[in-house]
C-alpha cells in the first residue's frame, strides 16, 4: 500500500448561509489518479480552493505530503509542490506561452533560477502539446490551447500533486482524446492527480478511484465500477438508470 500524499480530515467551509463543503474526509494515494465527480454546486471547485489555499477551511485539517497546509496561502502551497489548473482559464494574457510556463517553473516546487526555468517551461509546453506555439501570446490561443496552457503551466512547476479542474470541458472529441493521453503521460512521470470532470466516460476510464460529492458532502468513494453501481449515486447524481448501465459498460 502506498502512502497518502494528500489527506483531508473533516474539512468544512461555509459561505454565509451556504454550507459549501461539510465534514469532508478522504485521502489521495501517491501515484494514483483520483476522480472527483458530483452535480453542479456539489462543492468540487470549492474543495480545490480549500486544498490550494484560495479559501481557508472553517474547520478540519488538510495535510500534504506530511505537512499541515490548512489555511496556508496559495503561493506557499505551490512551493510545496501542489499545482492546479482552473475551470475558467486564467492565462497571463499579454505574456507568451513560454513566459506563462516560465512563471510556473520559476515559482514552483524547485524554485528554479530564470535560465533553468525556461528549459523546464519548454519541456512542459512540449508535454502539453504547445511546443509549436511557445512564442504566441496567451490571449491569442484557442480555448483548447488555453486549457493546454493551464496544464503546461501547472506541469512546469514540477508538482508532486496536480489538481485538474475540468480540463476536458469545452474540448471537441479529438482534443479530449489527446488530453486524456497527456494526463496519463503525466501520471506515468510520477505525478499524482486529483481531477474534477463532468465527462463521465472520460473520468471513468481515466481514474483509478472515484470520490462522489453531493451538496458539499461525500456520497461515495471507490473504484469507478463500484461507484457507477452504487444505488445512492445513481439516484442522487446520475438520475437516469440507463446512463448508469452505459457507464458500467465503459468502466
Amino acid at each position, binding site marked *: 500500500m502506498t502512502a497518502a500524499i494528500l489527506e483531508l480530515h473533516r474539512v468544512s467551509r461555509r459561505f454565509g448561509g451556504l454550507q459549501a463543503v461539510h465534514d469532508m474526509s478522504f485521502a489521495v494515494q501517491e501515484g494514483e489518479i483520483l476522480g472527483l465527480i458530483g452535480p453542479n454546486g456539489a462543492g468540487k471547485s470549492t474543495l480545490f480552493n480549500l486544498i490550494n489555499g484560495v479559501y481557508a477551511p472553517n474547520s478540519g485539517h488538510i495535510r500534504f505530503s506530511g505537512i499541515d497546509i490548512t489555511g496556508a496561502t496559495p503561493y506557499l502551497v505551490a512551493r510545496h509542490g501542489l499545482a492546479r489548473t482552473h475551470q475558467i482559464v486564467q492565462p497571463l494574457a499579454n*505574456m507568451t506561452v513560454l513566459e506563462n510556463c516560465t512563471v510556473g517553473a520559476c515559482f514552483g516546487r524547485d524554485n528554479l533560477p530564470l535560465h533553468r*526555468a525556461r528549459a523546464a517551461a519548454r519541456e512542459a509546453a512540449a508535454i502539453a502539446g504547445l511546443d509549436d506555439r511557445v512564442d504566441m501570446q496567451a490571449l491569442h490561443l484557442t480555448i483548447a490551447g488555453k486549457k493546454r496552457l493551464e496544464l503546461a503551466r501547472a506541469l512546469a512547476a514540477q508538482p508532486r500533486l496536480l489538481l485538474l479542474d475540468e480540463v476536458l470541458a469545452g474540448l471537441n472529441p479529438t482534443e479530449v482524446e489527446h488530453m486524456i493521453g497527456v494526463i496519463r503521460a503525466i501520471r506515468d512521470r510520477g505525478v499524482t492527480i486529483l481531477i474534477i470532470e463532468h465527462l463521465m466516460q472520460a473520468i471513468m476510464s481515466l481514474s483509478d478511484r472515484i470520490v462522489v460529492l453531493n451538496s458539499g458532502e461525500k456520497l461515495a468513494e471507490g473504484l469507478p465500477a463500484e461507484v457507477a453501481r452504487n444505488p445512492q449515486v445513481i439516484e442522487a447524481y446520475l438520475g437516469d438508470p440507463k446512463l448508469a448501465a452505459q457507464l458500467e459498460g465503459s468502466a
Partner: protein
Amino acid sequence: MGSECLIRSTSMIRRPFFWIIALTIAAFALAPAIGNDVEMRESLALATVYITLASNLNLMLGYAGYVNFGSIVFFGLGGYICVWLNFTHGWPLGVSLLVTGIAVSGFAFVFGLGILRLRGPFFALSTVGIVEGVQAFVQNFAPWGGSAGIYISPEVYQPLGGPARALWVIYFAFVAVMGASLYLSYAIKTSKFGLGLLAIGQNEDAAAILGVPTPRYKAFAYSASAFLPALAGGLYFFKSAFIQPSDAFDLSLSTEALVVCMLGGQGTVTGVALGAYLYEELRGYLLTSEMFSHFQLVVAGVLLLLIVLFFPSGLMGWIHSRFPRTRKVLE
C-alpha cells in the same frame, strides 16, 4: 547565488540595450557640458527628474499593474529628509542622500505591506490618501518648518565649490539618478523578480496560485520604486534652496508621471523614458511659445486623449507593432 548573479550581469553587458542606456547617460551628461550651455542644462535637468519619476512609477504601474497616484510622496519626503539632514544638521550631501533613499524606501515598504492588500481603484485612492496624510503631517511638523517650509542659505553650496559649480555637480547627480533608474527598470524586467511582477500585473490570483509570493513582491516593488525618486527629490530641493509642503507633495506632478508612462508605453523601459523626455520638451515648448502659452494644458490634454484613443499601448507599443524587430532590442 553569487556566481549566478555574475553570469546574469555579464550577459546583461553583452546585450545592446545595456549600451543604449549607457549612451543615453553619456549624451545627457556631455551635451550641456561641452558648450557650457546652462539653458540646455536646466531643461535636461527637468527631463532627468521626469524620467526618474516615470521609470520608477513604471515598476508599479507597468510591471505589477498597480496604479500609484501618489508616487510624488517619495519625491517630496526625499526632499524634506535630505534638506533637513544636509542643511539643518550639516551632514554632507552624499551621506544625506543615501540616508534619505534608505529612509523613504523603508517607509514605502512598511506602508506597502498595508495598502498593497487593496486592489484597483481602492489602492489608487489609498495612494492619494498617503500623499494627503504625509502633507498634513509635514504642515504641522515644526522641525521641518510647518507650512512655511525650509529656506536653505547659500552656504550649503560651499562644499561643492560655490553655487555656480554646485549646479553642475547637482546636474551630474541628476543624470546619475536617472541612469540608475533606467538600469533598475531594465535589471528588474529581465529578472525572476520582474517575471513575478509581470505575472502579478496580468492576473494576481493566477500568479499567487503559480507560486509568486505576491505580498512580498509587491511590497519590494513599491519600496524599490521609492528609492531613486527620493534621491531626485533631495537633489531637486537642495538645488531650489527652498522646500514647502505644497511644492513637495504636488499631486499634479505624480499625475504627469502617470500620463508619461501611458504616453510612452507602460511596462517598457525605453517607452517610459522617451515619453518622459518628449513630454518635458513639449511642456517646455508650450509654456514658452507665444501662441500656446495661454492654453498649453489644453493642447497637452487633447494630445493625451488622441494617444489614449489611438495608441492605447503608447509610443513603444506602436513602435513594437510597427517594427517587430525592435522588440528584441528595445526593452
